[in-house]
């Protein structure tokens, strides 16, 4: 032990952070994930991509870099041009003119229906209705990442508490939780998800989070239970018991921080897994409702577009997902290496 000027010393968390900083791949992954989270946050606040439902481009507007001879200035479409001027009546009387005038008098603020000029090309192209794919991808990231994150936190919380109780108390408590775990793992995953979706009878983001959270706790449970089995007979826990620390204190003040590396890595893994699950469910039509966009629903739409040769929606959603999932997986590996306490004690 060297004499040292400062009073404080690095804890295990600080040391883990230092190890992570040494890991170039891990840091890159962390930065990428951080960028995604910033975008999601901005989208949540409504500062970017406020409304993906606006039809800003022509149908299947190609991406800017793909559009060939069109100039990029906004131009009204042919149909829009025809509609924007007064409709020539060819000498006929408008039979509803008087009613229309009456309605206009009642609602003085009402505007004439105008056609917004639509763009011929969009940064990442447009979909069937002319929605901007870039906006959709940002909004879709928000949905997918939020669902993945919240569901992972829910599942990890459930799994940790159940695993802690089962592992710490053992005996019949352990048997009961193991039985529940057995039931959940015995049912094929997708069928279980469909069953819960059918029971909840409501399509929506909250439902999706609940479904994923309620089915996803099993992996965390198994690992946390094993950790608690190992730690409860460790001497530092026995010593705390000899000192008069209560069960709750031993479980959550003493043991929990020592299993946190396992939980954190599992949480990170779950986020990746649940993002993928959300995509699969939305792709199959069991996920988010039609008025919400997610990577999965984008991929679902892309099925039909691809036949027409319109590949940009598929590419946008696919690349966005691939980058995040890869970065998150690498971050998980880096976390595992950095947090591995075997290096220190």
């Amino acid at each position, binding site marked *: 032990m060297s004499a040292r000027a400062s009073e404080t010393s690095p804890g*295990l968390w600080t040391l883990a952070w230092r190890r992570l900083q*040494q890991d170039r791949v891990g840091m890159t992954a962390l930065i990428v994930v951080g960028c995604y989270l910033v975008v999601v946050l901005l989208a949540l606040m409504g500062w970017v991509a406020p409304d993906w439902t606006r039809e800003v481009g022509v149908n299947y507007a190609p991406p800017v870099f793909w559009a060939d001879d069109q100039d990029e200035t906004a131009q009204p479409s042919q149909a829009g041009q025809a509609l924007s001027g007064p409709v020539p009546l060819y000498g006929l009387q408008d039979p509803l003119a008087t009613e229309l005038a009456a309605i206009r008098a009642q609602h003085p603020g009402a505007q004439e229906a105008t056609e917004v000029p639509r763009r011929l090309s969009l940064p990442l192209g447009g979909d069937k209705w002319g929605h901007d794919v870039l906006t959709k991808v940002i909004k879709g990231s928000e949905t997918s990442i939020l669902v993945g994150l919240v569901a992972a936190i829910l599942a990890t919380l459930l799994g940790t508490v159940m695993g802690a109780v089962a592992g710490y108390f053992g005996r019949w408590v352990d048997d009961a939780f193991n039985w529940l775990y057995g039931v959940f793992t015995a049912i094929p995953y997708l069928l279980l998800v469909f069953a819960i979706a059918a029971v909840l009878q409501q399509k929506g983001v909250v439902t999706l989070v609940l479904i994923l959270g309620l089915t996803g706790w099993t992996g965390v449970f198994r690992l946390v239970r094993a950790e608690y089995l190992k730690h409860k007979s460790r001497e530092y826990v026995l010593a705390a018991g*000899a000192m008069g620390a209560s069960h709750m204190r031993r479980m959550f003040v003493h043991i929990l921080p020592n299993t946190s590396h396992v939980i954190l890595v599992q949480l990170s893994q779950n986020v990746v897994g649940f993002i993928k699950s959300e995509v699969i469910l939305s792709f199959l039509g069991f996920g988010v409702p039609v008025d919400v966009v997610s990577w999965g629903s984008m991929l679902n739409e892309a099925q039909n577009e691809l036949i027409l040769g319109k590949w940009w929606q598929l590419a946008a959603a696919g690349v966005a997902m691939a980058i995040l999932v890869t970065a998150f997986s690498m971050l998980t590996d880096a976390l595992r290496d950095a947090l591995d306490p075997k290096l220190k004690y």
Partner: protein
Amino acid sequence: MLLSVRDLRIDFQVSRNERLSAVNGVSFDVPERTTLALVGESGSGKSVTALSILGLLPKPVAQVASESRILWNDQNILGFDAPRLRALRGKEIGIIFQEPMSSLNPVFSIGTQLMEGLRLHMGLSRRQAQRRALDLLAEVGIPDPGRRLDDYPHQLSGGQQQRVMIAMAISCQPRLLIADEPTTALDVTIQRQILDLIADLQQRHAMAVLFITHDLALVGEIATQVVVMKQGEVREAGSLRQVFDAPRDAYTRALLACRPPLGVRPQRLRVIEDFMGDGQGTATPGVRSRGVSPGDEIVLEVRNLDKDFLIRDGLWHKRPFHAVKGASLRLARGKTVGIVGESGSGKTTLGLTIAGLLGADGGQILFSGLDLRQPGSVDTMALKRRIQIVFQNPYASLNPRFTVGDILTEPLMLHGIGRNAADRSAMARELLGRVGLPRDALQRYPHEFSGGQRQRIAIARCLTVKPEILICDESVSALDVSVQAQVLNLLQDLQDEFQMSYLFISHDLAVVHYMSDQVLVMHDGVVVESGDADEVYAHPQHPYTRRLLLAIPKGV
């Protein structure tokens, strides 16, 4: 010369910009047909040296300096390519490790594992190899080898596993046997048998043996040449007589003096500083008087204590395993009762049951006249203050996520001692000073301290609540000899100061003898002998006690 190590330097690349020197210029010779002991405490580089001889060090991490030489029959092993190294391993040089259980592959029968080397190096057929394997098992003293050949490692006891490891190591008639702490994980009586076996085989096969150990007493039993290492350097080398009778180096002298002597009981053990420093030792000569007089106040009395564990037997059935059977003891104020026994004797279970960490299944624990087993008869929180326990492994007994300050103030907080956090913090600081640690240690984490320092922290944690009884469960067994002496001295000082009663549990007979006023000998859950410490050690009545005492390595 069979093996010569010349200027061996090994560095470990710990991280990208951190190197650690493990071995720093070590040289020694192993002549044919001799036993050379490499002695040192943890971190001395003795095991790294042994592994480097066989090229078993992890390659990119461990870096051997280019000027180092390991000469086997005048050829440099360090320059060997992989096939030549393989031919050397097992065939010319055999090795046995500390943990026999993890050195044997659990999914192969011992016969298969024995025959593997024979067929690889000796080119024997299956049938020949099997015959040779049978001979080998018989030679290392495995009873009924024909039946044992198909057994798996877990079906053998620890001593038998080590015998199988030895059989494997000598199977190809090596000219050098490297034994890396071969008996450290074994009980003292088994250790004696394994030592005898190695000595016998060395004679019979005219092998040289490189015996690596931390225990100087063992060295005296087996070696003819001794090399003492400390922090990667050779401190002293010479013949056994020379090193033991006239040690030139201060460190060697300290190592020899730190072990509690069996004959007399000094007031304090001598510690390494007495030799290494400027000669201003703290050792006071005097002899400590031991024993209990009839008038002493009894703080704890245990009567016929039983403790069973339920073992799952099949799907539904459970059968009890009797860990402690009818144990009784009386502990007087300010005195020490030592409990000795081998692994599985129930001594730790007895300690944990008395500490209230395990529930008893029969008998009485009377603490100041109150029966602790009567539910509701005593306030458990008040009781927990009065009986504390210090565990064996200082690396496991401190919560790695707590600072030392957290560890020491937690019990104060739980028991409502001290008015506020600052008050408790001040008390913790004071205790740190009392157990001989720097006061700025409060903000640090356990992983920054050595084993001996951690054990001091664990002792300080017990002292926070001023217990009357301290249970020391193998509390010094995991420590190096020199550190052991310091911690034992600390325990003695604290007993003198606070008049605490100790229940001192250990497998180490010499340490128990040094610490105890009275001794309990346990075997298979039963107390086979108890009484005044000097009396039991001088005139053991029970045959098991006699066997145990005979097995103690006496040194020279």
